[in-house]
């Protein structure tokens, strides 16, 4: 499956970034091949509405799941309507977060 995760740096040393809209990077990981695409967050210094722009980026790539920390109300509205499930994780390594997701240890966020 395709999983998107907000991260503080590029793979493989990355940790999950609890901020969604102002995260440092967005990583898209294919959990079958463990192939990773990383994108620096162009919106992290936006005056306002960073979360909505990042949400758009995520939605346009249509992952099967998103793992992140805090999602602001505007971004939440967008993600909810996209029907992509959003999961909470602590600021652990990306590998750990993916592993937790695949083993049903992550809680889905009620946006």
């Amino acid at each position: 499956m395709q999983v998107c995760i907000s991260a503080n740096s590029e793979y493989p040393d990355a940790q999950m970034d609890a901020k969604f809209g102002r995260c440092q990077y967005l990583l898209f990981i294919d959990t079958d091949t463990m192939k990773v695409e990383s994108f620096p967050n162009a919106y992290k210094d936006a005056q306002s509405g960073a979360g909505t722009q990042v949400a758009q980026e995520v939605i346009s790539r249509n992952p099967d799941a998103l793992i992140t920390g805090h999602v602001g109300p505007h971004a939440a509205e967008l993600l909810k309507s996209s029907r992509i499930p959003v999961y909470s994780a602590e600021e652990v390594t990306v590998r750990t977060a993916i592993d937790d997701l695949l083993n049903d240890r992550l809680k889905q966020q009620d946006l």
Partner: protein
Amino acid sequence: MKQIIFISGKGGTGKTVLTASVASLPKSQVIADCDVDAANLHLLLKPVIRETHRFISGKEAIIDRDVCRECSECISLCRYEAISPDFFIHSHKCEGCGLCSRICPEHAISMQEKVAGEWYISETGFGEFVHARLGIGADNSGKLVSKIKQKSKSLARDNKSDYLIIDGPPGIACPLIAAVSGVNLAVIVTEPTKSGIHDLERVLGITNHFRVDTGILINKSDLNPDYADKIVSLAEMNQIPIIGKIPYLPEVFEAVSQGELPISDNGIFELLIHKAWGNITSLTDTKQVEAI
């Protein structure tokens, strides 16, 4: 790391003096001044500036008068009356929406980045200090406040500080909202006056809406005992703890008038500040509020 902000709604309640006094108690901390429009905390903390950064916020329109043929389309569409009849753009009125730039038939208008102020990282005798100066007439949208919050938080995390002490902005709009987001405790500094209570209620409207834990500190508490009681009742009704009550103390006013911190001589004020800080730490240490 616990984030504690001092706010007031109304100006002049003594918020900055109290923030400075709490900041002067020795502890592992970073201090931030989010009161960016007429910032005052540095006057008491006397920082030595280590880093200066320009603050860019939004855009503003520029008209190339050589290309402009004065059709006035831009003037008729600008909702902020930012373009004068002689095609001069009032920088402080321009919101940077870009509409004029897009509709100008001659492409005579371009948008450029607006330098809205400066922010600084400094050293003080009490810890590192992040503060700013908003440019005159700049749009106080809360973005500079957010920048100060973001930088001071990451500094506190890097330094593994126990506390981030923040002097908050007045009012109830974007700057206040940006400043209180994600704090462990917002201490509302109020005064027992009719105006003070009126503004306290408005600030509580915001902190309740954003579910920010609050405490109330009554400054100049002996000014009007009836109103002080009203504040205590209001606090009880809203289940908000009273962090402290500080009477008007001439020696505090004296010290501040000289630009000095009023804490130095184990007087009443110092005792009351210690007590207030004790209340603050017991609130922030026992509650499991997640700082964002």
